[in-house]
């Protein structure tokens, strides 16, 4: 009798493993990072075409929006810095309007207009030169007339600026926009089950066969995974972390996410993770929430309309919204100390 009970269990367990050809996972370098495209239920030829389409789209976006190599963005910046206007195509206008809206809703903490400040810190380069942090006087000179996205005037198809110091840098947003575009392209090809992961930030649609896509959220202090999230339908999971790019000078660590209020790298929060439907909003919100810090994140989350947020502070204390708490399963042997707080 026991044998009868065991056999169906074995059969069921084995049947959970799908035929391997159902799942395609491809990696390539694009957007200056490693991109992984996971597809489910697509035959090999369609998968190869889908990956090519995504790669082409991401390369096109990278060339258009690169902040320091010749691109549409550097052309716009040059025109605006010279006090000229720039006639933009509909795609460019749509992206800038979206960036403007997200910046406004973040209280300008997500501020893509502060390219000069980012460049002053040396983060507009593939490999930052071994140089000290900028002088306080130089930072304060920029802060005295710091532009924000309200200084960018969009009139018809013409861009102009009311602040000559405005220099666009879409670092906290372009990846989200690119992931959204990649998912749109996959949908247009009839693909409903996919993940596009660009350097750790991702949007997942559909599922992995009978089960949801399973996402591991990496521990900011190690290469291991701290928590797991199963995505539902169509969701983006984005994390901004102060460990992604940084340099050390005289024993002090300086990271790449600059707080427009102080001109210095944001303090207080080590990482901000956001789950939201579209990747553009998730990307900008994760940046803004990290900058906002432990005291101000709730207001930013409310104003940006994000309800699933996880913040890890410098003491590795975790704060989550109730909606995020419902989604996250901790992978560590002892669950970390978590504070649940309404946004």
């Amino acid at each position, binding site marked *: *009798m*026991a*044998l009868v*009970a*065991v056999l169906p*269990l*074995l059969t069921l*367990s084995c049947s959970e493993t799908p035929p391997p050809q159902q799942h395609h996972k491809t*990696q*390539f*370098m694009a957007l*200056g*990072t*490693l991109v*992984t495209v*996971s597809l489910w239920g697509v035959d090999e030829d369609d998968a190869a075409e889908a990956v090519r389409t995504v790669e082409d789209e991401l390369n096109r976006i990278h060339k258009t929006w690169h902040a320091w190599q010749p691109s549409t963005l550097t052309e716009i910046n040059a025109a605006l810095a010279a006090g000229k206007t720039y006639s933009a195509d509909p795609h460019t206008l749509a992206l800038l309007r979206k960036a403007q809206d997200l910046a406004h809703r973040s209280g300008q903490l997500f501020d893509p207009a502060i390219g000069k400040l980012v460049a002053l810190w040396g983060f507009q380069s*593939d*490999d*930052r*030169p*071994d140089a000290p942090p900028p002088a306080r006087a130089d930072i304060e000179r920029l802060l005295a007339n710091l532009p924000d996205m309200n200084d960018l005037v969009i009139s018809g198809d013409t861009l102009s600026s009311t602040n000559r110091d405005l220099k666009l840098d879409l670092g906290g947003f372009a990846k989200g926009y690119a992931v959204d575009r990649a998912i749109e392209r996959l949908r247009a090809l009839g693909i409903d089950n996919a*993940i596009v*992961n660009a350097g*750790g*930030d*991702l949007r*997942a649609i559909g599922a*992995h066969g009978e089960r949801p*896509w*399973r*996402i*591991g*959220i*990496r521990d*900011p202090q*190690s*290469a*291991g*995974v701290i928590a*797991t*999230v199963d995505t539902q339908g169509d969701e983006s*999971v*984005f*994390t901004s*972390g102060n*460990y*992604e*790019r*940084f*340099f050390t000078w005289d024993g002090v660590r300086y990271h790449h996410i600059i707080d427009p209020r102080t001109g210095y790298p944001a303090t207080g929060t080590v990482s901000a*993770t956001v789950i939201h439907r579209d990747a553009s909003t998730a990307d900008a919100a994760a940046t803004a929430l990290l900058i906002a810090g432990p005291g101000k994140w709730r207001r930013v989350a409310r104003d940006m309309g994000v309800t699933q947020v996880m913040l890890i502070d410098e003491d590795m204390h975790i704060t989550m919204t109730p909606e995020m708490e419902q989604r996250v399963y901790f992978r560590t042997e002892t669950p970390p100390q978590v504070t649940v707080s309404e946004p």
Partner: protein
Amino acid sequence: MTRADIIVVAFTLALLPFLYGTFWNRQGPADTALIIDESGREFGVPLDTNQQLRIDGPLGVSVLEIADGRIRFLDSPCRGKQCIHSGWLDESGEFAACLPNRVSVAVSGSEPLYDSINF
């Protein structure tokens, strides 16, 4: 209890550790590293042989070390050394990259625990 029952019960008990280990306690150990270099070439390297790999990139040579079923960046010509700070990779789905030198490593096993990793 008949002799047949005893055999069946013994068989079931003997099977339990296997079932538990296989279906409830998967840690998703990695057994293979996928290395991508600047030209986009991919190398699949098993993690069962201790060795050092030298991968050419635009800045110079990145050195990867495989030891005891794990892999890490041992040295790289970038300034930030964030690839080295990533440490050992041994759980399926983990990855590290030296973006300035355009070398990346992702590890996987036959039973990946995650479909994708967010960081």
